[in-house]
């Protein structure tokens, strides 16, 4: 490793650098965003997206994929805006039940050796259907404590930034630094080795899915705290956003190679990309297209950097 900056380091730097480049472009286009309130406004919706991305990351870490997280967050949002607001005990029980359901899904996928893509695809219908049953028409109200938390105005640094940093660091310590997290990640790298070392892959899968469910619940609650009401389709796009966020953040589809800090950065970058495009005054027809182009560009950069990465 004689090169001054190894490709590994460069690759790790790519997510924060692309976020920085995007921020600079936004500040340049719209200087008014470079303020406490501007940033608050820009980054508000990044918090629930980041939480959903972290949820997806736990699933990707054990070589699975969750195509239902968007529908799940929508369901949580509907429950939060109705039951949790009107009958807190019922709401809490329902949300705890959802986390348990996620753990159960992990067990089912592992025990029957099922493809997670298809199981979660099926679950996306289930979550969406339940959301429609809980809240047939858009509405509901956010519980006050969630509302006040999400609209907190701490001094100097806007709340979304604090929340993102705390989230990234907390999950980083949990998954990347702790001895427990090491075992969880190991299950993504070589499950057979874990089993041979006496660990239960079933328990690890259930733990990872439960963690995903837990962060999915947080995502839905945070979302309702911002929007104050919910509907059954509120977060459907989170499925694709969360996958893209993990990948943008340097995560990979197989092998347990993920990064919580990268995932949060990836999520924030995606959330900002939308604002950036509207500041560009792009023909609205091409807005989604440009979002796709940005995604391709960042990934292309990553590949260029990785090209130098050689096995020792």
């Amino acid at each position: 490793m004689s090169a001054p900056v190894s490709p590994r380091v460069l690759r790790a730097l790519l997510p924060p650098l692309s976020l920085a480049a995007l921020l600079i472009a936004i500040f340049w286009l719209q200087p008014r965003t470079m303020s406490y309130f501007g940033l608050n406004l820009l980054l508000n919706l990044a918090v629930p997206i980041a939480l959903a991305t972290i949820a997806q990351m736990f699933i990707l870490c054990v070589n699975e994929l969750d195509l239902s997280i968007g529908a799940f967050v929508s369901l949580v949002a509907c429950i939060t805006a109705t039951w949790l607001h009107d009958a807190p005990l019922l709401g809490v029980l329902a949300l705890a039940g959802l986390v348990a359901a996620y753990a159960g899904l992990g067990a089912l996928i592992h025990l029957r050796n099922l493809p997670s893509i298809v199981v979660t695809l099926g679950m996306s219908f289930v979550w969406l259907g339940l959301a429609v049953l809980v809240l047939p028409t858009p509405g509901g109200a956010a519980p006050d404590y969630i509302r006040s938390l999400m609209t907190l105005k701490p001094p100097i640094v806007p709340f979304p930034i604090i929340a993102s940093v705390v989230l990234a660091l907390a999950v980083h310590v949990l998954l990347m630094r702790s001895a427990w997290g090491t075992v969880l990640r190991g299950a993504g790298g070589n499950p057979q080795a874990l089993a041979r070392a006496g660990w239960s892959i079933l328990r690890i899968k259930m733990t990872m899915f439960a963690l995903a469910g837990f962060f999915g619940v947080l995502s839905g609650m945070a979302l309702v705290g911002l929007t104050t009401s919910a509907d059954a389709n509120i977060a459907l796009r989170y499925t694709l956003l969360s996958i893209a966020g993990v990948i943008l953040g340097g995560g990979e589809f197989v092998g347990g190679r993920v990064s919580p800090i990268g995932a949060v950065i990836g999520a924030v970058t995606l959330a900002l990309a939308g604002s950036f495009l509207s500041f560009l005054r792009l023909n609205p027809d091409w807005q989604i297209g440009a979002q796709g182009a940005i995604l391709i560009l960042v990934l292309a950069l990553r590949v260029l950097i990785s090209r130098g990465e050689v096995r020792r």
Partner: protein
Amino acid sequence: MADDATPVVRLDGVEKSFGAVHALTGVTLALAPGQCLGLVGHNGAGKSTLMNVLSGNLAPDAGRIEVGGTDLTRGYAPHVALAHGVRCVYQEGSLCPNLTVAENARISHKAISGPGWRRRARALIGGRLDEIFPGHGISSDDIVGDLSIARRQMVEIARAFAETDTPARVVILDEPTSSLDSVAAGKLLAHVRRHVEGGGACVLISHLLGEILDTADRIAVMRDGGVVALDAATAFDRGKLVAAMGSVAEAAPRETAQTAAIRDHAPVVVEASPPGPDSLALTAHRGEVVGLAGLSGQGQTELLVQIFDHRPGTVVDGEVAMVAGDRQSDGVFPLWSIAENIAIGSLRQFLSGPLLDHGRARAFAEEWRGRIGIRTPDIGNPILSLSGGNQQKALFARALGSTAAIIAMDDPMRGVDVGTKQEVYAMIRAETAKGRTFLWYTTEMDELVHCDHVYVFREGAIVADLARAEMTEERVLHASFREDA
């Protein structure tokens, strides 16, 4: 004799079947402290199954397992085995490639947890590596996926010998030297001796009979799922072991004079140089067996792939077929039958118009089963129903059955039994007579005598070019380690 002490492990009448296959047919074995037991036998003799039973990965159908004098048969599982000090180094590797060396140590040592675990894991694995493989060049913060296969094997071995709250009472090593070069292998075997002299116990499984004879105190020979011979190592020699395993006689290498003649008269079919600095070029003539030697992972595989791909800058006159050495990652199609795995290399031969004729493909595979002696009742069985050696034969059949004039072999004999090897050597000889050329990367010194010409690799370059007449073990080793520029 060590036999008087309470055995650390005792197996009593252990049986295990997979469907109709009786992998173990009542194995009784005892392992005393301070003893290294050598375990030899052909592929499919039951060594790996026995090891998996011992480490708790497979539950036996019948029989008893005692560790340290306690009957643990009921509920025996990997964590029970580990808690009683039974450690295992698996042939195919059991490290998580996405974790660092230290983190991998944590995976198999549950006692390493809580604050400061990372520091303790580093000290534990680093210390063992230094002890067993001085000068290993591995940092405990390296990601395992970035390490060469030899270094991964070193980490795996060091991890098995490392001790936290439970001692390493029995360390089982399954072909531990298969991906190590001879220097590292020597260090490992020396450590095994130190370990048993300190009162530990080892089970050493290896196809290299010399290794077993030099290192083990006692040797058990397995055949068809049972132990057919068990005695002190001094009671055996190479011939007796081979006889007990039931092997065929060794084929004689080609005469030296003959090999020089090929080099002088036959046309050149391959000319290639590895990208390493100041490398010599490799040349292969029609009908030659060209050896690619050196320590493992010095660029031999890469050069074979370069030739296989006909990359620019390489002269390759003819089609190339590859025999993979790393069966799981480079060779086998796990969902397919044996027949399909053989036929994939020659599909074009079975085309009638644009469509494939499956009947002809099947007949072709059937023919090769006979020619190369794949032991299976039905060629339509899944490839994974075969033992490792027989899977390897299917891969040979795939390459030899193709129309390719040049066969590139990527250390294909890793973990293959002696009998199979002899059959393949003879087949290679026969094929060269028909004008086929072989490029043969091997890490086993014994195999180089079958080559007409040997190129020694070091750090991605060819550093020596040895004709058969000048080739000796010393010269190959010398070139492998030469330190001048």
